[in-house]
């Protein structure tokens, strides 16, 4: 693999960029792999990458029914934070956040991780208590967060209106090392690195069946023919229920639409990510200048990747209230993705009833920020059968009543 650098760009510029090689190969599938990852989104690619990097397992195929990074990886609002309340969540999201810090260097691909800071606004007394609690928990979890005053919020976010007549800003939970990254680049960077390790990324190849023998997985059937393997990792946000049915087990999960939108680009006016959970809206400004805006999920099962407009209205209303100056900006584009939501709205990273078949799903609205941590942990689980990061995220926790509930901190998980 030719390394990317300013010198490489300069060299190529002189020959009109004719010398760049493919970022990833586009091979036909082999008959057998040690590991088949179903789903070439961020999580699937990251899992493959860490299987190779951390465990030397490189005879891996990553099978994708569409195009890599084409699901939720490429349609989220790119927020990265780890200020979660519960230990297992804080552990995996902080692992992810720390891996994001060095991802560009690891992958030799600029994923534009920008630790510009994330503030979650407290707008009720109840929220104040919730976020102070989170700050205390984070301190013990090794996650750097702090509770900040309204005045400090205003310093960091000059465009904010502290004195909303309905919900004044009473302070915020600030994670200075949270931020954003370029979502597509994360998928592309991992894909390039996986391909470079000799892994096969097989796009436009749909899994049509999961083959098992004696309760053990032996391969998958695909639109490009059968592929044998020793282990399967199912990492298909939005389609996990469908795939698990193929393997013969069910998931405690439902799929709903989550929407986002961007404004037209403007010159920089907001450096941090701000989340206002009481009023259900969050916003950041991309490097391109667009205000990137997200809200809550629709309430009903949906696979259309379209949401209902009243959710957009609610989100925009909240943001106009919180940042009055956006009133005169314009919505450029709205879109939707399908997120899988489990019984406690936390993910499942787990062994399954089928031996050697592993599942990673149910990230709900928190998928993008967890990609490297999720991949790291999933790779460890698949390679060794155990990962401390995934221990609490089992499929069985619902039976035991051992939930990982993040909504308790007055927050929604975005």
């Amino acid at each position, binding site marked *: 693999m030719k390394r*990317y*650098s*300013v010198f490489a760009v300069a060299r190529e510029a002189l020959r*009109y*960029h004719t010398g760049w090689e*493919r970022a990833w190969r586009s091979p036909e599938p082999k008959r057998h792999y040690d590991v088949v990852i179903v789903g070439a989104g961020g999580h699937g690619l990251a899992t493959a990458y860490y299987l190779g990097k951390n465990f030397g397992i490189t005879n891996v195929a990553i099978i994708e029914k569409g195009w890599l*990074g*084409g699901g939720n990886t490429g349609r989220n609002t790119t927020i990265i934070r780890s200020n979660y309340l519960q230990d*297992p969540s*804080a*552990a995996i999201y902080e692992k992810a956040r720390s891996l994001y810090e060095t991802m560009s260097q690891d992958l*030799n*691909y*600029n994923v*534009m991780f*920008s630790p510009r800071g994330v503030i979650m606004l407290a707008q*009720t*007394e*109840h929220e*104040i*208590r919730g976020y*102070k*609690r*989170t700050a*205390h*928990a984070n*301190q013990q979890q*090794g996650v750097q967060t*702090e509770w900040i005053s309204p005045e400090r919020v205003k310093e960091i976010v000059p465009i904010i209106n502290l004195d909303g007549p*309905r*919900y004044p800003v009473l302070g915020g939970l600030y994670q200075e090392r949270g931020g954003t990254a*370029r979502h597509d*680049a994360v998928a*592309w960077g991992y894909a390039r690195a996986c391909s470079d390790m000799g892994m096969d990324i097989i796009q436009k190849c749909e899994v049509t069946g999961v083959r098992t023998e004696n309760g053990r997985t032996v391969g998958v059937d695909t639109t490009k023919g059968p592929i044998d393997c020793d282990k399967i990792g199912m990492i298909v946000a939005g389609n996990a229920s469908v795939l698990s049915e193929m393997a013969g087990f069910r998931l405690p999960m439902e799929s709903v639409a989550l929407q986002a939108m961007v404004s*037209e*680009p403007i*010159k*920089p*006016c907001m450096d941090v990510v701000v989340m206002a959970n009481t009023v259900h809206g969050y916003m950041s400004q991309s*490097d391109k*200048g667009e205000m990137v805006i997200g809200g809550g999920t629709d309430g009903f099962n949906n696979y259309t990747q*379209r949401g209902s*407009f009243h959710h*957009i*209205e609610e989100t*925009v*209303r909240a943001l*106009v*209230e919180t940042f*009055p*100056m956006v*009133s*005169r*900006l314009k919505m450029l584009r709205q*879109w939707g993705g399908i997120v899988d939501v489990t019984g406690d709205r936390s993910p499942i990273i787990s062994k399954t009833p089928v031996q050697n078949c592993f599942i990673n799903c149910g990230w709900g609205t928190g998928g993008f920020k967890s990609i490297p941590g999720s991949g790291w942990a999933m790779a460890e689980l698949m390679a060794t059968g155990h990962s401390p*990061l995934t*221990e609490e995220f089992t499929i069985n926790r619902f039976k035991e009543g051992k939930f990982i*509930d993040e*909504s308790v*901190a007055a927050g929604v998980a975005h």
Partner: protein
Amino acid sequence: MSTRLANQGRLIDRSKQIDFTFNGKSMKGFAGDTLASALLANGQVMMGRSFKYHRPRGVVASGSEEPNALMQLGVGDRYEPNQRATTTELFSGLSANSQNHWPSLEFDVLSINNKLSRFLTAGFYYKMFIHPRPLWKHVYEPIIRKSAGLGAAPDKELKDADTYEHFYFFADVLVIGGGVAGLQAAKAAAASGAKVLVLEQNNFWGGRAPVDGGTIDGDTPDAWIAKTLAELRDMDNVTLRDRCMGSGVYDHGYALGYERLTDHAPGQGGPRHRLWRIRASQIVTATGAIERPLSFAGNDVPGVMLAASMRDYVVNWGINPGQKVVVATNNDDAYRTALVLHEAGVEVVRVIDTRETGGGALMEAVREKGIRVELGRAIAKVKDGKCVTEVAICAQNGEGGARETVQADAVAMSGGWSPVVHLWSHCGGKLIWDEANANFRPDASRPPLGHDGNGFVVPAGAANGEFGLAALLEDAAAAGAKAAEAAGFPAKSVAAAKGESAAELQMEAVWLMPAKADIKLRMKTWLDYQNDVKVSDVQLAAREGYESVEHTKRYTTLGMATDQGKLSNINGLAILADSLNSEIPQVGTTTFRPPYHPISLGAIAGEARAEIFQPVRKTPIADWMDQNGADWEPVGQWRRPFSINKPGEDRHAAVNREVKNTRENLGLLDASTLGKLVVKGPDAGKFLDMMYTNMMSTLKIGKCRYGLMCTENGFLMDDGVVARIDEDTWLCHTTTGGAERIHGWMEEWLQTEWWDWKVYVANVTEQYAQIAVVGPNARKVLEKLNAAAGGGMDVSKEALPFMEWRDGKIGEFDARAYRISFSGELSYEIAVAASEGQAFWDALMEAGKEFGVMPYGTETLHILRAEKGFIMIGDETDGTVIPQDLGLHWALSKKKEDYLGKRAQARSHMVDPERWQLVGLETVDGSVLPDGAYAVGEGVNANGQRNMIGRVTSTYFSATLNKGIAMGLVKHGPKRMGEVIEFPGTDGVTYKAKIVDPVFYDKEGEKQNV
């Protein structure tokens, strides 16, 4: 240079001159001008700078598809960036500034990027700025952010001076687009009797037909449009709205209209924008088509314009686009531009037609005017600069070696037409590739599906890929009739108007000009003007493996500018397909998403802002509270006073005063926000036994019982006192903000699980004002009121014991008094009719004077209950806490087989002795524990996190006890009484606290039992 023609201009009124400014310079235009046409009339060809390379740019289109001429409009609280000059109607005093440059439009420092463009290709930033790591955040990214973005951000304190509104409309048939196809479709649909709404984004009707010429029913298009509009306006079942864009089509026939009411007349009053929320049975998309640019080097130089747009400027606004114009085309339509220019007296230097055999009648007409037409030719290059000066012409089928160079100051280009399929596609309508016209058009067999599984969008006219007046009008009439019929209004036969227009010969798909342009030319050939994406960029993306159209889009940013690829998408797709040796339909399109054209966030937010952002629920005593120092806090939809501050008093001092006074004298709390649900019916007892963990069916009439409600998952969700009113009636109190939720919860079970149980639930929360009369003097004040009224309810210990209720008179008021206490004091919660709430409050305040009465707020309520060790839903509970964690076993009926949550509480983790349990906490030094602090144990867990053994759930300064008190959940807590555990604060201090009984005050309960 562009100028105003002496005549022409069907949309302008030369008798009305309008003054405006551009970059501070005074200019003049006419009523009917757009900002773009007015600027052109003033010779201002260069109107902006591109996004990435900061190249000089002029207006290229005449409508909402314009990617270049974006302006900063207005000042102060009416400032707005990124307004298209082409859709901005000129008004007196308009102030426009070009954007994305520094220091000026003419001289832009960042145009250095243009010089560096060879380095700054697609995706260059993914390959650079990787090392050293800190530089990305601190150096590279800030530079990129500053140079990106378009218009300047509004001022950070901007408060929008305008208002916005929402409007509902229900239509049988919604016609989007008021061109001749839209009007024809509307006419056909309306004839059936269907209720029809027609939306037109411009301030004029008829679309481009009047510019393009031809005849309709033997008359000019203008005449037919006027006649048809008059007919439609006369029909009661038709509503017409101009300046109103159909911006999005959503599921089940929902559509948005975006009406710009005062953009052309700011300050005239009324809302600026109106968002139409439309439900339509059927939607006709008569949204026309957009001309495609041709891809030749220098196709972005100011003065290069779409051929039909140039025609618009001439015919509609009387603009002379230049002195010498080159027309480049691959189809017949652009010849119309040559004819219009010629007629306006503009010299057409050349018509360059890529087709070896040229066009039909229109070409002949052009030749007859003596205009030189070159066949099989292409533009090799337009010389770089701030305006077109020189055009090099070559063979289309070559590499770009120029045969001839001509002097010109404007270029009209036409690469063919693409139907506007956006609205068809928003909700899943599929497309097919039309080989003849080289465009994607709606596939009528795969429309977006409505609630009944049938298609609900019908494309019409050019939006359906039908060009030529005759075919277009027939298609539109059929579409209108089809939509009406599908909406349940069988069509009356309405003959389509007869259109006649010049016959056109086959166009030729030309995606690169010349066909074998070398790399140097391709690096100067723009696809996406605003985002600076060139042919070479798409080719690079394909070469690097970004093969999917979505990859290419995202890698190059093709089609991601504010025009969302209206001009660039098809051209880019074609280049990609060619690079992949694939066909365009195989490559496919990116997804079309709403809105069609950007719409203001203000319009989306609508009226609900500031005071009416969300409704505030108010109790009958809210106004009194407001006048007497209430320090409000939002609690759900309500606001409650945190404390009631005296002048000059801060909230903490107020709380301490309130606490002490209530304990020592008399406190009044407005408890009206507590939910009050009447549960009634023969099965009400049985039902409440399921809803509550306690046994409610055995509660005696006249008595009260504190009850807990759990989710089916076992977790505590609400609590409150339940009173048995009569044989089959109970009144259930819920938490503030819980009334609607719990009412819904009860209804859910009654309607969907136990629907044969005979129970009614009514939410009477707002029917009553409820006032807690609390403190040692509580009985005295009530007795005083009764004495004054000469009788009333006996509120003595014997007549109204603790945990009982009575109906009767208190003073002059019909009241229901509950002897319940959330404070540990002698306490009556008294409900009166909401309409009498304020009077009752006033009476209590007046009578209570001699007893030291003071109102108190929520914080005092919290402290009083915490001193007594009473739990608070939302503090001690958070959705993960079960009653057993809180030592509430006594409230879990052992006699009942079942209640909601019972099964869940039997799961292994719920009976785990390791669960954290409720205890009281007292700091060793009497200080107040920090809110939300965690207690730490030894060591770390497998993920390196410090082991935690408990947390603070409530913490207060108790003025009664003059020290900090707290409640918390601690592992093995009740067994560790007296132990001291550590709570590291976020302030760097480690707080040491002793585990104690959670009841801090009056453990025996003597004070409430008097």
